[in-house]
Structure formats: C-alpha cells, structure tokens
C-alpha cells in the first residue's frame, strides 16, 4: 500500500485543491444526471416495450367515410368485411370504434354493483364482432367468444350497452381481485352506473388507446358494430402480406363502393411509433446529454491530468531519477485521479439520491432502483481512469535526465 502513495498524494492535492475540486464537482454532477437519466430511459423503454396484445407487425387499419343520401352503413360494413375477410392473405378483420395505442377512443367506468356512489374501474371500450379475438390475436383464457347472434348494430345517438362483454385479464383482476379468472366468467358488471352486462369471456391482453393511461390494460369488448357513415376496419394479415394488402384493399374498397373516402391507412407499427414519439425523443435527448456530459467530464479529467503532468515535468524527472519506474509514475497519476474521482463520486451518490427525491416529488417518477448507483459509480470510475491513463502514460515517458536540466 505504501507504494500507492495515498498519503503524500492526498496532502499534495490539499495544497492545490481548486482544479481537483472543480473536477470532483463535475464528476458528481455528471453522475447525478447520468444515473437519473439512465433510470428514466430504462423506465421509458420498458413503457415503450409493453405488449399491446396485437400481432403488430401484420396488422393495419383504415378509415372509410361514406357520403350521399343512399349510403347504407350497415350493408356496406357487412359487404366490406366479407370482401376483406375473403381476400387472400387476410387472416381476419373487424369493424372497430378505436385502435389500441392510437390516442383516441372510448372509455367508461365499470363497477361490480349498480349505483352512482359505487366506485368504478376505468376501461377502454372496443365495439367489435365475433372476429375480434382472431383479429386482435387475443387468447381466450376463460369463458367463450361472442357468437354471431350476440352482435348488434349500434345506431347513431344510441347510448345503451349490449348485455354481454369480454374483458381483459387485468380488468378482471381489478374488478374481482379475490376471484380466479374462471370464477369471473358469468359475473354481472355495471356500466354507466347501472346498466348490467354479463362477462362472457376473459382474454389475456389488449391495450387501451391511451399509452400514458394508468389503466392501459383495462379493455372491454362489447358485441356490436356501428351503423355510422364513418367507420374503421382493423385488418390482420398473414406475415409479409401487410404492406401489399394496405395498397390493394384500399383500391378494392374504393371500387366496391365509390361514394366514400378512404383515409388514414396506417400500420399498428406506425401508430406505436407515433404514440411513443415523445418518449423516443426524450430518450434520444437524454442519451445525447449523457454522452456529452461523459465526454466533457472525460475531457476535464484529461485536461487536469495533462496540466498536472506539464506542471510537474521536472518533478516527474526527479522521481524517475530517485528510482521511480515508469509504472510507478503511471500509478501515481492514476491514484491521484482515483482520489479526485472518489470524492466526486461520493458527492455524486448524495446528489443522485437528492435529484431522484426531487423528481419523485415534482414529476411522480419511481424511486431509483438501488443498483443504478453502484453501476453509475463503477461506470464513471472506469471512464475517469481511462481518461487519466493517457496523460499518466505520457508522464511515464518523461526522461529521468530532465532532473539535471536547469530549465
């Protein structure tokens, strides 16, 4: 340990502390920002990677809006769906009121008992037919799918609800936390305070349209199609057929019934990208900030170490003359940097925790997982030592003969 010269280096640093303190502060601030930024990035990435339940790579949707007095929405919907479903390469298709992750849709409150005073659980509502599970690629965990007889048409201005529903597993657990999935099937739930619906089935997973919503996995499917002039079709294709069918089906539907506009032909992949665009941007900004800060810190360390080497050329020559090997000179500067970095990192740990408390208080982010701090310490320690190695290596190349030069 005596060869590490901790004591003399510390005492020498205390006599020239300004540069060292500035670098230690820079390391502390860098650690604070990097650790919290990495934590936010990991959280955002986990959020972005949540499964929607859909066969995303092979699913797209389009909006069709009919016009003119002769437009018969029910007939057109039935004919459109028959045409789409019979198109080679299409696995299944449904008419739907909203698209998962798209940012717009319907939501309602569900309760296990009727009454305004009963606390309800929020859910997204998708109005679908008996092809929904196949189109969504959803797995039925309990109960049954809708039958064709269950499906009704919802007219414009109609506000009542069908008496059947299929719900997601997550919603079932929120509504009936004490029951198993099989026990939930057949239970009555109440929508809009007092309209009863019987749970016909439970599916594994499906996401609501709003990616920032706390109840993202709360989804209710009701057996109905909309007799509206404007409607959406969600179409699931065989692998590799999506892009081709996006073009051909748009053309086919337009030819099938010319008095309509077909727009918003979009993949689920694109919808996901749009919905998480802000998160992606934040990740990119934070990543760039982290890289920049790490570079600035590394340059600061290189700068201070280089300055110290240049300032001490004679001293290094003297040390070499007195018996220091090249390794001993490298070790000296590495230990010096280690001491400076250690002070910075100790301060950084405190600041990191402090900033996380502030972020929890102001932006309701989660508390930092414990392992982020030691990881940040190790990372910056390695960056610091790598940055110091170059100047230390150059110092070791100083000739011992410099000791006898008078200039």
């Amino acid at each position: 340990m005596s060869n590490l010269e901790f004591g003399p280096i510390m005492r020498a640093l205390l006599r020239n502390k300004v540069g060292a303190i500035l670098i230690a502060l820079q390391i502390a601030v860098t650690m604070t920002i990097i650790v919290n930024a990495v934590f936010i990035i990991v959280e955002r990435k986990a959020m972005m990677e949540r499964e929607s339940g859909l066969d995303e790579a092979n699913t797209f949707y389009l909006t069709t809006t009919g016009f003119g007095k002769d437009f018969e929405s029910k007939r057109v919907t039935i004919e459109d769906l028959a045409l789409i479903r019979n198109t080679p390469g299409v696995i299944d298709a449904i008419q739907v009121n909203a698209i998962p992750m798209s940012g717009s849709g319907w939501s309602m409150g569900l309760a296990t008992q009727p009454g305004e005073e009963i606390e309800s659980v929020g859910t997204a509502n998708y109005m679908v037919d008996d092809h929904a599970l196949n189109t969504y690629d959803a797995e039925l965990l309990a109960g049954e799918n809708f039958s064709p007889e269950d499906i009704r048409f919802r007219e414009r201005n109609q506000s009542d609800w069908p008496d059947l529903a299929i719900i997601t597993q997550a919603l079932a657990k929120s509504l009936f936390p004490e029951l198993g999935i099989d026990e939930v099937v057949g239970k009555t739930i109440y929508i809009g305070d007092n309209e009863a619906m019987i749970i016909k089935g439970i599916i594994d997973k499906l996401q609501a349209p709003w990616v920032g919503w706390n109840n993202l996995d709360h989804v209710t499917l009701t057996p109905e199609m909309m007799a509206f002039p404007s409607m959406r079709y969600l179409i699931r294709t065989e692998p590799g057929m999506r892009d081709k069918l996006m073009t051909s089906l748009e053309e086919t539907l337009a030819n099938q019934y010319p008095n309509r506009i077909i727009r918003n032909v979009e993949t689920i992949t694109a919808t996901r990208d749009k919905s998480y665009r802000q998160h992606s941007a934040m990740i990119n900004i934070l990543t760039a900030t982290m890289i920049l800060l790490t570079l600035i810190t590394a340059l600061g360390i290189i700068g201070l170490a280089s300055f110290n080497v240049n300032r001490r050329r004679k001293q290094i020559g003297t040390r070499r003359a007195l018996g220091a090997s090249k390794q001993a000179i490298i070790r000296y500067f590495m230990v010096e940097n280690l001491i400076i970095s250690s002070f910075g990192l100790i301060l950084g740990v405190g600041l990191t925790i402090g900033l996380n408390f502030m972020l929890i208080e102001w932006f309701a982010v989660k508390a930092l997982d414990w392992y982020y701090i030691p990881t940040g310490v190790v990372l910056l320690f390695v960056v610091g030592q790598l940055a110091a190695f170059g100047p230390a290596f150059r110092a070791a190349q100083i000739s011992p003969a410099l000791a006898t030069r008078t200039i």
Partner: protein
Amino acid sequence: MLKMNNLCKSFRTELVETHALRNFTFSVDEGDFVSVTGPSGSGKTTFLNIAGLLENHTSGSYLLDGIDVKTLSDKQRSQLRNEKIGFIFQSFNLIPDLNLFDNVDVPLRYRGLSRAERHQRIEESLARVGLANRMKHLPSQLSGGQQQRVAIARALAGKPRFLLADEPTGNLDSQMAKSVMGLLQEINQQGTTIVMVTHDPELAMQTSRNVFVRDGQISEAETIMPLAAASNQ
C-alpha cells in the same frame, strides 16, 4: 565501483550529430570523492546523467558495481538508481507540495520499505543534516541551504553506495556553499563515495581527486590538484 571504458555519447538531429562524450575512460573507487570540472558544454552533465543511469550511452562500456548497465531494462535501471545511487541536484529538486518528511520519503517508497523502517531512516537522515525539527515544513519555508540539506538527507536516507552531486552549491551563497561542502566531506569520510560535478575550482580542490572534461574528453593537462593530494606530495 564505477568504471567507464571508451564510452561515447552522441546526439543526432536531422542536420547534425553532436558528440557529447568521446572515448571517455574513467573509474571511481570505493570511498573516493571525485570532482568533475570543465567549461559549459564540455560534457559534465552528460557524464553525470550516464553515471547516474539517467540516460544510456551510445557505445563503450559502463560497469557499475560490476554490472554492465547497457544490458539493463528501464525497470532494472530504476531499481539500481534507487538502491545504489543518491542524487543531489543544483536546484535541489524538492517536491514543492510535499513537506520535508514526505520529500525524503519519496525514494524510500519506491524501494518498498516498511513504514517503520522508512520513518526511522527519514528521522535519522533529517537529523544528520540538522533539520529533524522541521519535518512538517514545506520546502518553500526553508532557505536555499536548508533545501539543499533536505536534498542531501533524501539522498542519504536510501543508504546509497555513492552520491552523484550536480553543482550542489551552484544556487547557494558562499556561506551556505561552505556548509553544504562540509557536509559532503563529512559524508565521504563516513565511507560514501561521491562524484561531484562543479564548475568551481575551489570546490574541486576540496575533493580527493579531480577530472577535467573538455569537448567530451578528459583533459589530463587541465586537471586541478586537490588540496589533499597537494599536501601529500
């Protein structure tokens, strides 16, 4: 203990080759106090650097305690410098950020001595130069003469076989120079071999042998007769 035979040292630039030492043949025996004198640019410092293993010679041979230093690696040369040679520099070369204790400790740490032994040696050597009570002082708090005494203590603490002194009184006034020279003579009398480079003929006369260097070679004709040698004759 130090034997140079036909030793040459040349420096080459793009345009010119300079011969700093030419066919330099020289030896020092155990217990000698040799002064090396000569005008500026004569090769004194080059000789000192080679003798102290601070740089390599170009050709010829140099044996230090029977070891051919040309064959040594950089690490082995460092170790040999640390164990066998003590340096005293013209401008003292103390480390300004370290107190006297830590300054004297520098070569001892490179030797890997135990903490207790290092402490004992530092205290002894600082006491020997009369600065035991100023261990916690910084070099900047001392006079030039005192700083050179610390440098001597640093050299002595390693218990070297021989001391290499480069103009040890060059930056001191005459009173302090006399005191430092007295200390070196005392050290020599206690058995340490000393080779001192100086431009001062008066100092050279106080050593046991003088070598005069001109144009990278020993000039027998200009050798100064030391007082001790003169009184023996």
